[in-house]
């Protein structure tokens, strides 16, 4: 592969992720609107929001780390996007792999923590501690699932993972070969996206939107971009691990949108748990399922 080709891919992959992520943000709001019996926003609404947020005339910054934190969060996601294979583009996915990816997935939360920490707003700090607790909760089933998938297919290389799964059609997909792991993964996905019933760190009525409390203008714009990347990454990762990745762009997009639509639809039916209830739930059922799945994978 030529260097030019690689460079084009490295630019194109985050760009695609951003566009698809914005569409997912729209999907989130449209699903909510339909369940709440209303029309919902127009098609380009997420784009308008992001452009508007970046075009604010005055910005309230609380210091260097406040700005750097957002850059770290968005930057980490840009790096992640180059590490997950999409149809036709592998980027540097062969050099990365599941282990690196699972480390990188923690960086945005840490970046956010840096940024919010400097705002010195108690609501932000409480939200942050809740976000970290949530991360602690969902990381255990998530790591078990990653480990199980790696064992199942005997590889941590994402490109190989896709190739192995696509070799035998649907029969060799992760979700067929090891459904227990797939269910545990879906649980983890709900918690990772921070949607109800695991939406403990946004919680407007309790801590007035937690980490976002001091974010306005470009900072909030950064968070919007980060959220769109987050939706996309979650969808692609799950598709890569359990749904055989993308054969072509058509099936790939269908797969990732369906995967993300499940947690988003569930979110509008439930209130949020308390922190300790969430940790208890996430450490119990997904972990048990993932361990069973791991046993199946090892045998």
């Amino acid at each position, binding site marked *: 592969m030529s260097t030019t080709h690689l460079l084009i891919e490295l630019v194109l992959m985050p760009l695609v992720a951003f566009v698809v992520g914005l569409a997912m943000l729209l999907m989130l709001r449209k699903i909510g609107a339909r369940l709440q019996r209303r029309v919902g926003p127009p098609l380009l609404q997420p784009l308008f929001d992001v452009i508007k947020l970046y075009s604010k005339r005055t910005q309230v910054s609380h210091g260097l780390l406040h700005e750097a934190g957002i850059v770290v969060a968005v930057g980490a996601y840009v790096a992640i996007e180059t590490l997950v294979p999409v149809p036709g583009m592998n980027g540097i996915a062969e050099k990365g792999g599941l282990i690196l990816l699972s480390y990188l997935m923690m960086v945005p939360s840490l970046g956010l923590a840096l940024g919010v920490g400097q705002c010195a707003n108690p609501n932000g700090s409480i939200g942050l501690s809740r976000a970290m607790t949530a991360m602690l909760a969902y990381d255990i089933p998530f790591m078990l699932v990653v480990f199980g998938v790696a064992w199942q297919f005997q590889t941590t290389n994402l490109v190989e993972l896709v190739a192995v799964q696509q070799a035998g059609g649907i029969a060799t997909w992760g979700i067929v070969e090891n459904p227990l792991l797939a269910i545990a993964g879906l649980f983890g996905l709900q918690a990772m996206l921070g949607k109800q019933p695991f939406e403990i760190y946004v919680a407007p009525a309790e801590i007035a939107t937690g980490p976002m409390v001091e974010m*306005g203008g470009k900072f909030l714009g950064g968070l919007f971009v980060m959220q769109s990347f987050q939706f996309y990454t979650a969808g692609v990762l799950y598709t890569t691990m359990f749904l055989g990745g993308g054969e072509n762009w058509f099936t790939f997009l269908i797969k990732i949108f369906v995967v993300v639509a499940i947690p988003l639809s569930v979110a509008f039916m439930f209130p949020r748990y308390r922190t300790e209830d969430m940790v208890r739930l996430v450490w119990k059922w997904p972990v048990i399922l993932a361990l069973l799945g791991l046993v199946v994978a090892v045998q």
Partner: protein
Amino acid sequence: MNDFPLPVRAERSNPLARVFDELIDFCRARSMFMLHYCTGCGAIELPPAMTSRFDMERLGIQPMVTPRQADILLITGYVSIKTLKRVILTYEQMGSPKYVIGICSCTVNGGMYWQSYATAKKLNEYLPVDVYIAGCMPRPEAVIEGLRKLMGEIKAGRANSWERYFREYDRYLAAQQNLFGPNWQTPTDIIGEARDYQLYGPGTEGRHTELLQQHQVPLQPLRMTLHSDVEKSS
């Protein structure tokens, strides 16, 4: 109130820049995050306007929770003097461009509480109001109509009255000091911001801001001490 007329969106000579400006104004009009401060009864007609029946989100208007994230400050009803202080603090924390909408007759002229000792009468004296929606209380359709009017103004680049607060700060501060006493100050440094963002106008500083500088205490960061022994040792 129009001592210093504000310019309509300055036309830049570069056609690309002009297209860019228009795109940004379009996006600002199509994406309005509003902070609805329930100052009074009008707040009861906002849930219907936001929820399933009238659904403001169709127009890209959605509620936000903190002033930092919001573009529009909705003053929904009479403003008592105690609330007005908080409204001004909230307004100053919002990022520009920001717009104020006064809902209900009470924000225009005191409405049916014009005799009351507890409510402020003319919101326009204390904050630059973009659109008034009169009525007691205005129906959700009227609220949405008012927001659409603001949308049109933003799209045409005419909704600039937030600049007035920077350019004529002295006048607004005068009205605030008249009500809250000469010691009134807010944590936001409006004059500094006006200088920083080239919004400094002939009316930014004056007799009343001088008063402000006499007694203003510089803000200190909040100390967050968690352990008592840290305090003792230091």
